[in-house]
């Protein structure tokens, strides 16, 4: 399942605006917590096996990793969240678009 690590960690790159929804307020609140400097969280990818795609007449059309990091203004707290996505299409599985 998902992973969580503390420490300096990698500087996560915002690959999409998507996790911009991460509450700035939440991060700001964390800024006051001593001992929490850098935390990163990553989910495990979830998807359909090739066999399952065939059974369901679905075909994978994309797979992506979405990451977001926010730091408090003083730089003492950084929270990174990494999610995984997969998209499947019936039309693609049927040989169409």
């Amino acid at each position: 399942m998902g992973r969580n690590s503390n420490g300096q960690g990698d500087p996560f790159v915002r690959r999409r605006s998507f996790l911009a929804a991460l509450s700035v307020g939440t991060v700001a609140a964390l800024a006051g917590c001593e001992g929490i400097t850098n935390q990163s969280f990553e989910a495990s990818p979830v998807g359909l096996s090739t066999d399952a795609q065939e059974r369901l007449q679905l075909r994978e059309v994309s797979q992506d990793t979405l990451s977001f990091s926010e730091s408090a203004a003083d730089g003492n707290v950084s929270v990174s969240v990494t999610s995984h996505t997969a998209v499947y299409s019936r039309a693609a599985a049927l040989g169409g678009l």
Partner: protein
Amino acid sequence: MVDRMGPLRTAMGRFVERSNGGLVSHGAVVFDAADLGVSEIPLGMLDGAPTVDARNVSLVTPGAADGKVEIKIAMREGLDDSMVLVPGDAIDVDEIAPLGDAYVLDLRDVLPAQSWIPLTGDGGAATAGRDWLAREGDVNVEELELAVEKIERARSVVVPTGPRRFEEIFGAEPSVFSARPVEDGETFEPADVLVVMPGDNVTSNWPADAPEQPADVDFRSALPRPAPMGGVSFGVAVLSTPNAKVSGNSANPLSYVDTDDLLRRDAVQNLLKEAGFGEGTAFTVEVGPERVSPQDGPSTATLLGNEADIESYVGILGGDAEGWGVGLHVVRGDGEDHVIVVGLHRHPIGPVDGAIDVLRESDTIVEARKLVAETAGQLSDE
């Protein structure tokens, strides 16, 4: 290796794909001709040019503007862009005798099956008679049952092709669908056939002594229903996101916001575009999303070993995608991560008042929930 199966195995599926500029995922809708302000339709491509009451005629209308990748709904100005379906026994003749080029096909090679769940074994899928055929205005169960009975009796489908060749209409040779040409002088018992013909074969054979063709067929005020195309527009987005907590506080809103809120998040909207709303399309949900809880079909799914509710919504898109009806089916489960599964499908209903009601009552919602439940049950994090 991709198998061409399901709706693309059928002549109607290929007609829809071709009419949609190669995009079968744009799907189609079915109008009852009587709802379009048409009262009678003469069938000049049949011997005797019999006239059929429009209450017995349905029109399968593909969704997209021809050749456009964008999900803009096609302008529907007349009958020419539709496929016209008439049960043979609604035609008042002793025998049906096509004039000009025509083909005979098995029913199952013409109309896609209803079910969105792929069938195993050699059992054939039930064809969705009641959704393809005209409901004769005031819908009641008895009439629907009769329609289903009709189509099950209609073991053959007669397709007069008219001014265009079979390949132009269906994008494949007749042999692909085991179609055989109607022989000179061949006739058919009306009760044994379903007559399916391109709309331009109707208009180009409009008899001179028949009442004039309707100048405007009013597609804009009529409510169609999604064509039962086996889920061709169906897509699934899966998002696994960590249940991030710092000092006991959740740090990832996607893991805890309610589903109404979740569906409005950029993250999810971007995924929905990939899964079928159309990338690069500027859309808004103009009407809804409105929560629906159909009585039929599954209400829960198993997601990574845990039971979870299926939450369904219907809506009508606006912006560049004006008039597309959409169904969204969400399953969410928590373990160490929060996993979100969203199945979606869309249908070119049109910017018509009451369009959301069509979706709310549609069998497609039940079929989509079944497929989402099946999909969630086969997801793995390994």
